[in-house]
């Protein structure tokens, strides 16, 4: 046999055994699993285990020492690995840097490839939307309706509308993410308000497409890589120097992609951009008084504090403290997770509900009137959950909350 035939033969055997070889960029994750000492520290902290118990979700230790160990049997782990919200709490407490949230995505990808019938149905619908539209949500059929919905939101929140800008060689590409692009349009507009307020030279994408995070989370690795490729091409063509986004998931995924695929462009969340590029002094100068004093706590998205850096929670606090009449109260919740991550809410709302309850209790304990989250997805999720429990606490996206306190341009 020639070398090529050898290779084909081996690949054939692997396919029969339902094994997909690891990609080069997955090796570090795979090796990290081998460092697990089976100590169980992560189990004490995993918010899903806390919410629904280890019988329903066997937890990160089990993922590290059992579920990730036998590629031919990955398909048999679907009822567990699809319940991980990817919050990253396990990795943060693990003494051995075991990459549980990443290995979960790799296992999901292999289940998706070999046994798509074992991927929750609801995720296939999301995948279909991604394939059809390059977006996580089906786009509006009527663009006028979309504009009307946007204007209603802006009016309610007292935010201005600035015309969309698309241009080459701008300093910053503003990437709102699917949620803000299609649903929480006020967040997209708020992002623009922030950039306009500081005269940032920015552009939007002419033709928006998803960063691929939902595809990664549901296991469609191929689509994820394709979406990432499109995006890279579009970003490259625009020739911007920085990317700014209002979404926690997008920030973390784009940061990852930028490094993995060599985009060579730094990615900032609005919070980072404000603190690191604009500076807290310039921001403070511009922040205006709101009508009444607000007591505020922050929900810190997993994708910001655990997939990127806890320093971002600090940034959020700094910004709120700089607001003339907002009182910042720290929530003493440690292992927070809104339950909305990992696409769990799509197919197992009871699990998402079990997870978010701890959060809601912590929010109520702070006694604040408002919770803000630097991510439109978390905001939507928490808002819905608080509404269901009949809570009077209001919820805002943090970028919106900031934009409301910035001067409007003529």
């Amino acid at each position: 046999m020639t070398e090529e035939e050898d290779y084909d033969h081996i690949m054939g055997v692997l396919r029969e055994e339902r094994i997909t070889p690891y990609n080069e960029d997955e090796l570090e994750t795979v090796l990290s699993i081998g460092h697990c000492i089976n100590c169980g520290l992560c189990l004490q902290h995993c918010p899903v285990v806390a919410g629904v118990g280890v019988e329903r979700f066997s937890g990160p230790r089990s993922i590290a020492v059992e579920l990730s160990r036998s590629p031919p049997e990955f398909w048999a782990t679907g009822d567990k690995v699809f319940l991980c919200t990817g919050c990253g709490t396990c990795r943060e407490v693990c003494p051995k840097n075991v990459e549980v949230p990443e290995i979960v995505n790799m296992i999901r990808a292999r289940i998706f490839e070999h046994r798509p019938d074992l991927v929750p149905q609801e995720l296939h619908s999301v995948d279909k939307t991604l394939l059809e539209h390059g977006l996580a949500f089906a786009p509006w059929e009527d663009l006028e309706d979309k504009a009307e919905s946007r204007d209603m939101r802006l009016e309610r929140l007292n935010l201005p509308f600035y015309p969309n800008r698309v241009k080459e060689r701008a300093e910053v590409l503003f990437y709102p993410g699917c949620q803000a692009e299609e649903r929480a349009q006020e967040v997209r507009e708020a992002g623009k308000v922030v950039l306009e307020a500081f005269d940032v030279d920015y552009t939007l994408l002419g033709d928006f497409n998803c960063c691929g995070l939902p595809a990664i989370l549901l296991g469609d690795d191929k689509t994820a890589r394709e979406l990432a490729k499109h995006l890279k091409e579009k970003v490259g063509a625009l020739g911007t120097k920085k990317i700014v986004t209002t979404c926690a998931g997008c920030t973390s995924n784009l940061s990852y992609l930028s490094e993995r695929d060599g985009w060579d462009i730094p990615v900032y969340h609005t919070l980072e951009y404000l603190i690191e590029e604009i500076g807290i002094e310039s921001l403070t100068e511009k922040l205006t008084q709101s009508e009444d004093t607000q007591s505020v706590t922050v929900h810190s998205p997993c994708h910001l504090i655990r997939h990127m850096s806890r320093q971002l929670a600090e940034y959020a606090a700094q910004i709120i403290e700089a607001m003339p009449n907002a009182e910042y109260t720290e929530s003493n919740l440690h292992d927070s997770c809104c339950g909305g991550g990992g696409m769990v809410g799509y197919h197992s709302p009871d699990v998402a509900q079990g997870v978010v309850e701890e959060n809601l209790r912590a929010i109520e304990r702070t006694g604040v009137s408002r919770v803000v989250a630097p991510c439109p997805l978390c905001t939507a999720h928490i808002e819905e959950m608080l509404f269901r429990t009949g809570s009077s606490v209001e919820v805002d996206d943090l970028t919106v909350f900031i934009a409301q306190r910035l001067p409007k341009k003529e």
Partner: protein
Amino acid sequence: MDLDTDVLVIGGGMAGLAAGIRSQERGANTTLIRKGQSATSYSSGAIDVSGYLPGGSQQLLSAREGIEAITSLYPLHPYSILGFGSADNDDVPGLAIERVGQAVEWLTKHLKSTPAQLYGGIDSNLEGITLVGTKKPTALLQQTIWPGEFAVDDEGVMLFLGIKGVSDLNPKIASKTFLDNQARTGEPPHKVGNASLDIAPFGHGYNLSTTNIARWLDREENLVTFIEQVKKKAEQFGATYVALPPILGLEENLKNQKALQEATGASVFELLAFPPSVPSFRLQRGLERVFIEKGGHLLIGHEAEPCGIESSKITEVLARSPRRKVEITTRSVVLASGKYIGGGLAATVEGLRETVFGLMTVTDEFRESGKTRPQRLTNVVSLSPESHSLFGCGLSVDQFLRPVNPDGDATAENLFAAGSILAGYSYAMEKCGLGVALATGHYAGETAAANATGGGV
């Protein structure tokens, strides 16, 4: 991302947090980075200061007695180093006892009224009861683990109360072991019972953990049913002591213990646990909260990147989180990165390595161990009273806890080390793990703060 701080603490276990809290208290702006949790989060709920003499045979009546003996016999033990003081100090044991005692009192004060509230001190070792029914000498126990003195009262009845589905405590075996021990020593209580409760937080009575139950008991609505069940069993056995697995709460354990004692009239307490445990969860979280309350900057999920020491001072450390890098400029550094589990020391076929600054490591006999294969430092018997030399390896430090180079000089004038990364003792054998971490952390925090704010040790 950039950050400027007076004192940077690397490591978030007992040593790092004690250093951080102390340094912050001493007026230095302090940032603490930790990549994960570690040995401190594996501990049992007992804070050991000195339980046995090195060699393991002699059980000590008090930590004070232990420190006195250790500082006289082992001049390079971390407790002895704490006793060095200035050149004209001729009472090493005295100073060591003073410093350890102060650290213990200081910690007790800070943890008062928190879920990790402590009972005990260095003047008398307590006996905590473990999940398997044995006893363990230790200086301090978490309040809810302290059973109270076993009065010389022959009528006392001890009830081991398990929970269906929580495998940590097998009440039958624990009560038998406990009873055998009582019979041998002749100490009360002589009557022992065992039973199990059936509570099902997720609707089933199997595959539950102590953390699950503790979280469940943190919610007031669940306490009422729980008290009723415990009361019923306590009455049935006429129990004067009720031993539970460590489940009384992650947050509300003090309040829950009180409610249970009032309802049953018995001493209700938790047993010392297996790692990782509910009590160590309370300790870790309690320490972190004190640090934050004191104004410290806690940056979890960040790992100090390896870097060499180029000059006599460390001014910059790079910390990495999953997708960000933070450049930290600092005036003092406390290295409290733990041993093999924590990651401060790495033992590979090439030898023993300190992982952040590449500092010199030594064996328990204070010989350079950079090229010593770890296999040479273990015993054939895994559980031998001599322990393993490997446990005694680590950093050699001067009287200010600054790691030294082969010439015996401080590697950097503003770098201090604390906790299990230090050489010269074995926590496993001496039962002094958290005590050494606390006392050296406390002192390192003080010195690092003085160095950062006053310029010099």
